[in-house]
């Protein structure tokens, strides 16, 4: 079994507070893996540890078999680990095309080119256009990001992540704040991603999780409570206990 993304006994302490407690996560290559947990379970911290925004107190992060524990965020992206954000982090005054071209540039290592204009790097532009077409964003390619509807902006979030051609994609509540109809479309798009892209999904919406994921980890109090297939998780009494309130509400 090859794992695309692993952690081994990952610990993060803030002062005396243990935010992540000995998390060992194994995400298989090509998996649609979901990470769930109630509020305050430490999902955000874990994401930050995986992407390199935070450094762990102890433990390792392993990406495609290589230790990346002490690499900076952008270096991990170069090795194929991309993410989207729970709350949009976009470039408000750039157009959609500019944003995506910029992201493609970074993957192609063109970001430090300072002499030729953006448009003259045709390979990057072509790729960006293709990506926009795939996400059905072509018609707004020249719109300024801030002028778009929230649903469209969520798609740009994903486009920016995909521009990195990731082998592992972390989706942090991709449907947060999106109306139900649009969120269905969004998930169709996500489901349509090629199978060689491993996806780790952090999501609140249990319906979506159970429909989409083939494996689920449950995070509680900074530690992994349990892990298994959707069926197993759905019938796990411990999970029910933790999720009682929320699962019913959702």
């Amino acid at each position, binding site marked *: 079994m090859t794992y695309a993304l692993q952690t081994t006994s990952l610990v993060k302490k803030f002062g005396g507070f243990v935010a992540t407690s000995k998390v060992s996560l194994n995400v298989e290559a090509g998996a649609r893996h979901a990470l769930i947990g109630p509020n305050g379970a430490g999902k955000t911290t874990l994401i930050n540890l995986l992407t390199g925004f935070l450094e762990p107190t102890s433990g390792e992060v392993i990406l495609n078999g290589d230790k990346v524990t002490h690499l900076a965020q952008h270096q991990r992206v170069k090795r194929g680990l991309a993410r989207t954000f729970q709350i949009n982090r976009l470039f408000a005054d750039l157009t959609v095309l500019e944003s995506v071209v910029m992201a493609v540039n*970074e993957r192609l290592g063109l970001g430090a080119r300072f002499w030729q204009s953006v448009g003259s790097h045709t390979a990057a532009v072509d790729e960006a256009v293709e990506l926009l*077409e795939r996400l059905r964003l072509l018609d707004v390619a020249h719109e300024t990001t801030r002028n778009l509807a929230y649903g469209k902006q969520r798609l740009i979030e994903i486009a*920016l992540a995909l521009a990195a051609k990731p082998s592992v994609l972390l989706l942090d509540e991709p449907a947060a704040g999106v109306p139900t109809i649009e969120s269905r479309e969004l998930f169709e798009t996500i489901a349509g991603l090629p199978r060689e892209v491993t996806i780790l999904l952090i999501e609140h919406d249990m319906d979506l999780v159970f429909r989409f994921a083939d494996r689920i980890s449950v995070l509680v109090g900074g530690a992994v409570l349990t892990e298994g297939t959707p069926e197993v998780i759905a019938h796990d009494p411990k999970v029910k206990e933790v999720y009682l309130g929320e699962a019913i509400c959702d």
Partner: protein
Amino acid sequence: MNKSMIDLTPLTRATRWHPAELAFWLLPVAGYFLLQDNLVLLTQIAITALFCLSLDLILGFAGIVSLGHTAFFGIGAYAAGLMAAHGHGDPLLGLLVAGICAGIAGFISSLLVLRGADLTRLMVTLGVAMMLYELANKLTPITGGVDGLQGMEIQPLFGSFAFDMFGKTAYWYAVGVLFVMFVIARRLVHSPFGLSLKGIRQNVGRMPAIGAPVNARLAAVYTLGALYAGIAGALLAQTTQFVALDVLSFNRSAELLLILVLGGSGCLYGALIGTIVFMTAHHFLSDMNPEYWQFWLGLLLVLIVLFARDGVMGGVRRLGALGKGGAKA
């Protein structure tokens, strides 16, 4: 809509110059013929514009606030001044050396400056510049201290155009250097590098997540801004044939920031137009009223901020947007 239908010209428009831009660059030519008597003022406007451009690169495009940008201006001025005072008076060589010295200093100080948030950066840049000021004052035997660096001898440009009191050579020299540096900055701003700087400015948190090494980019542009400032300092030293401590003064940094904000940061023409407006106003006001011109200048600033943000400034910005239009990819 499919991908063959998309219009990609917005991405490449930068390579062409808008007619308004061409018209703008006719101004210095017109200025030469119409304002023969004010060539020194025009020269100094060109130099300040270049200096302002350098701040625009780091503040306007990379979002690094600096209250100590004179550090690099001063380093450039002293580098060029010391070269000329010790027998290496070729102006272009002086520019080159000044730019390199300032660039190196910029790179080193970028390691300090890139830590912390805005106010911290403001104060760290300020602190670095103030320490350089004190250093230049301390090194009186080398720099001449408050009395200024004496004995600069600038050789004629290209061996044939001497810098005389009518200031024609100095004018074309300064305008020429400004133009070349502007063209370089313009290309840079419209390049992938420039785009990534805009990205950093608009959302610094996102950039690492698309694989961009933010600190390396910022260090690069800070170094470049320092280099530009150094060249501007060298130009001032060479055209004035004198360097005094005030090239490192706090007032110069603050005034520069003022000019840039006035002109509109984040737009190359904003730096140029801000300089023209500010220095012309300063010149006329201080000629009319040598003692109290500051009052009128202050009033002008207050009125602009309060009432004309969208009038005068908006106009300037719109004009700037024309030039920038090329970059609008």
